[in-house]
């Protein structure tokens, strides 16, 4: 494994798959499907290989030398561009304890999503080709350490997503797709602006001692690299760091999605086909919170510190507001979509605490929400495939007819409710413990605990309306889940239970990095706040 460019492999393997699929004739449906399956399976294997070679004691975060599986070389270099000096962009990949769980999550969810795509009704070739392209974009976002490269992956994922919703979606697919596209693009513009601002504010020192402007995320987090007059330099008294931070944050917040930028999500989910919903909720939403942790936090530690109360507040609003809105949904899928809004609020709340407990909780919640929500959307998909409706009130008493399915539903629902023994509990509890320990956001945290109750309320009510009560004879013909569907539910169920009982398995991966991040936020934030 030594010397193998494993990150490039895991990232670009899907592109290879896409090429193969494009070369296959479109009537060779089995070939296309199995190619996609093989590629994503290989991706999972690579991710597990990475995990086995992953050193739990290296922090990464703001220390370039302790990133792992690093691949770095000059990608674009233009010498002496008039007043800019040398323009260079690195091809720079690497992982640490913050991105490692996300790589695992992406690989797992992608594989499950391929399995759930087995019965896509039309244009299979196009679907899987775009799907694999999307996969590359997602993976790239989590492993890129150069802002420019990060941005390219970020945008790369947008286009296939647009078509996947817009072509294979439901009745209002065009609306949903364009809404998703434009909304995210709007966020990207903010990110791009900040990126350019940062570029002109900081330099890195090359091996030969010369200084060049940089997109390197790790160098950008080092205040010593900032020049005195850059627009985003902390040493410039007229700097725009607050505005830039808010712009960057909004750019990422759209993806999370954070209130009030969340309304694209229910539409996108309702219209998207099941596997795309799974990807969307399972992985895409995490890119927002990951971006905040990877870029916004370390690059702007002092602004983060100043604004942490607001981040926590928006976390609280997400939790409570999402739960309340979920409570009155009549469409099963929309309900799950709003529950995502609520559950992503915990991630925000945990991050805002800036404590290692809270951030560990937040990242764990990202992973857990990824698996749990993926399962919830698969559940919706299973019933929609059979009944062609998602109206919660159209069902009733299905538990008698579909006992195995109901069993999985119960596990997933209670995981979402945060039942101890299942993974959701641990991350929510850590978020609360971390957030509660910080005095300034304590009240916000206390109010957020209402989410525990509301979450149980909408989930159990849904469970009752669909599965309990008198059996609705209309669904006499429904069949219980088949082995393919079992193949998507069983791995997720195992992960959910395993991490509920033994959360250390995941916490140990991320902890060294998270403590380094928390420590950095504390010291760097203090330095900058004290220095001004």
């Amino acid at each position: 494994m030594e010397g193998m460019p494993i990150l490039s492999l895991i990232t670009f393997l899907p592109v290879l798959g896409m090429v193969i699929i494009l070369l296959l004739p479109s009537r060779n449906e089995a070939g296309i499907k199995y190619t996609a399956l093989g590629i994503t399976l290989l991706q999972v294997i690579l991710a597990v290989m990475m995990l086995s070679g992953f050193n739990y004691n290296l922090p990464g975060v703001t220390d370039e030398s302790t990133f792992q599986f690093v691949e770095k070389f000059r990608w674009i270099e233009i010498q002496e561009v008039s007043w800019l000096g040398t323009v260079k962009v690195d091809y720079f990949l690497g992982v640490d304890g913050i991105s490692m769980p996300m790589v695992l999550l992406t690989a797992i969810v992608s594989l499950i999503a391929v399995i759930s795509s087995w019965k896509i009704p039309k244009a299979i070739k196009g679907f899987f080709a775009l799907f694999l392209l999307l996969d590359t974009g997602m993976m790239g976002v989590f492993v890129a350490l150069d802002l420019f490269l990060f941005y390219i992956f970020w945008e790369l994922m947008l286009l296939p997503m647009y078509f996947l919703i817009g072509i294979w979606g439901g009745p209002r697919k065009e609306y949903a797709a364009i809404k998703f596209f434009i909304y995210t693009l709007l966020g990207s513009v903010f990110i791009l602006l900040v990126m350019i601002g940062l570029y002109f504010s900081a330099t890195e020192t090359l091996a030969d001692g010369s200084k060049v402007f940089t997109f390197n995320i790790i160098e950008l987090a080092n205040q010593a690299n900032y020049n005195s007059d850059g627009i985003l330099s902390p040493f410039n008294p007229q700097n725009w760091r607050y505005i830039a931070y808010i712009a960057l944050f909004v750019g990422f917040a759209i993806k999370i999605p954070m209130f009030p930028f969340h309304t694209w999500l229910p539409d996108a989910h309702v219209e998207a086909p099941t596997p795309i919903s799974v990807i969307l909720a399972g992985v895409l939403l995490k890119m927002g919170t990951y971006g905040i942790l990877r870029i916004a936090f370390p690059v702007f530690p002092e602004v983060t510190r100043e604004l942490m109360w607001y981040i926590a507040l928006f976390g609280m609003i997400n939790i409570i507001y999402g739960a309340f809105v979920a409570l009155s949904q009549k469409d099963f899928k929309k309900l799950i979509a709003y529950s995502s809004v609520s559950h992503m609020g915990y991630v925000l709340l945990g991050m805002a605490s800036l404590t290692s407990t809270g951030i560990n909780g937040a990242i764990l919640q990202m992973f857990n929400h990824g698996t749990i929500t993926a399962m919830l959307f698969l559940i919706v998909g299973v019933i929609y495939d059979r009944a062609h409706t998602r109206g919660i009130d159209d069902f009733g008493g299905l538990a008698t007819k579909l006992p195995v399915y109901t069993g999985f539903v119960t596990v997933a629902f209670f995981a979402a409710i945060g039942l101890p023994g299942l993974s959701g509990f641990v991350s929510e509890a850590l978020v609360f413990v971390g957030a509660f320990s910080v005095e300034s956001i304590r009240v916000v945290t206390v109010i957020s605990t209402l989410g525990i109750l509301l979450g149980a309320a909408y989930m159990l009510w849904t469970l009752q309306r669909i599965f309990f009560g008198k059996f609705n004879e209309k669904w006499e013909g429904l069949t219980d889940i088949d082995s393919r569907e079992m193949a998507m539910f069983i791995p997720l169920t195992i992960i959910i239970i395993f991490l509920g009982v033994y959360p250390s398995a995941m916490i140990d991966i991320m902890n060294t990095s998270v403590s380094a991040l928390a420590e950095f936020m504390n010291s760097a934030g203090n330095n900058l706040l004290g220095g001004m």
Partner: protein
Amino acid sequence: MSHPDIINISIAILFLPLLGFVSVIFLSKKISKMYIVETVILGLTLALSIYIGFQKLFVLKGEEIVFAFNWLDYDNLTIELGIKIDNLTVIMLFVVNLISFLVHVYSIEYMRGDKRYNRYFAYLGLFTFSMLGIVLTHNLLMMYIFWELVGLSSYLLIGFWFEKDSAANAGKKAFLVNRVGDIGMFLGILILFTTYGTFTFDTIFAQIGEGIMPFGSFEWLGIAGFLVFLGAVGKSAQFPLHVWLPDAMEGPTPVSALIHAATMVAAGVYLIVRIFGLLTADALLYIAIIGAVTSFVAATIAVTQNDIKKVLAYSTVSQLGYMVMSLGIGAYAFAFFHLVTHAFFKASLFLGSGSVIHSMHHEQDIRFMGGLKDKMPITFWTFVISTAALCGIPFTSGFLSKDGILAGAFAFGNLTGHWIIPVLGFAVAFLTAFYMSRLVILTFFGKPRDQHKYDHAHENPKLMTVPLMVLATLSIFVWFSFNPFDSSSGAFLGEWVKTPTQAFAEGSYEYSQTGMQTVHEELTPQLFEEEIHHAHYPAMFLSLGLTGIAVFLAFMIYYREKISADNLESRFKGIHTFSLNKWYIDELYHATAIKGTMVLSRMLFWFDKYIIDGIVNGSAYVTRFVSYLSKLFDTFVVDGLVNFSAFITGFFGASLRRVQTGKVQTYIVYVVFSIIIILVLI
């Protein structure tokens, strides 16, 4: 016997029922008799818990055995899970396993023919596992974990017959109402963890002993303790969160015996017992008041209910109120004592009612029963013995424990002037005797009121009656004290269960005392102990007197019918309806909390759809409108200007064309005229 053995056995006791659950769930498709496996497992855990109970109580005695391991360990945070085995633990292990085992045996007959027969036993196993976790834990986190698992398993059991909407509703209600209390508990745990950096009870107590307070204030310790207690308000069905328990009777009756009489609801009381060391005097006073009010409210409701299980449900709420009140006033040992005695006789009563219901073709309304005593002698006699225990008739276990609680209440009132607590306590004693006598008379005495069902009634097979007999036997005084009038001479209170004076002496007592001085004069544990001793006989005679009057009244009204129940009902119409409708508490919650939540939810959804998304779509429209405008601008203004200038050019070109004659003479004339004009103008 060494400690590691005890620990290993305890862990086995904990996980065996889980193993049962898992194996039944996965194997029952192939093996139809999996329920036997589950029952045998429970028999095994019962045997094991008797064994370690014996070792602990008679061999190791006062020693405490702790086993802990790090569940999460990172950075500055270590989260420890573990078990602690003391006398309380082994007594509870025995109670839970015994009742669970008896319920398993009973259910083999009771649930026969149910289409999810095996699954029912699986759920019982899951429930037992969760409950044992609560019993064994030595820390708050594990308490919370198993607390929620109890919530899950009770949800599954209450809603077992989920085809019935009422059952599905009841399960959901139980879970949600419990969650309300759990939020309080969770916040309390957060405060404690933030302060003490640990979830372990003993470590927390030790730090309290050193004078470390949450947020540096004594009041906050009280608040934290009270918040944790809110978990018990939910689980032990205390007012105002008691509403789930009566509804939970939708579950199969053996389930009610297991979880709504002996175990789950007792978990709340057990929690208070475990956190007793961090409850301040203020917190305890509120706890006592909540307990007393609960006990009274529930008793008044039980008087008018007609469903045999509902009467027992409210009676359970009422008795749990007793225990909580008892803990609040500091009569710690009596509370735990009552928890144990109540577990036996109330489980017996529930199983007895199940026996009646089973033989009456699922009739639960006592107005259609009557005269069953000859048809079902075993059920009748065990029911009567348990009722006597519940009413506190001498020679029963209930007499001993209830007497202790009432003496404690009496002493408390005497010492502190909070007379409301003993007054409510004795009122409940009266009401209890009355409604239980009414229940027994209407069910077993008199003439059958539904001849058809009566004709069908029969005594149930041994699988059902033997558990009844075991439990009724355990409701007799001898197990707890050889002196039927003084419980302190028995091993249970004399040796095994002691008010944790150690926690008092070393730590919280110092603080409790300061609190107590402000709240209730100079109340020290010693003084209280002494006062209880003095109050013993007055309290006993008072309660016996009240019980006697109540039984007599019930006898006159319902048996001899000297006093017409209907007359009483119409005379006290208002009170009767109020009680029959359970103080309208459910209606109140419906109109406020539930309705409020739903209305708010719909309002927010509207807001989301039309305002937030409206802004999004609006800005899209605005963008499109602007682009339309710019298109217009483009067409008519920008393009228009271009075209206009072309037009102007063309126009002038056309008109000027005439000027251009092409003749040199004409041009000379123009030039000359021009020069003249210019000169003139200058």
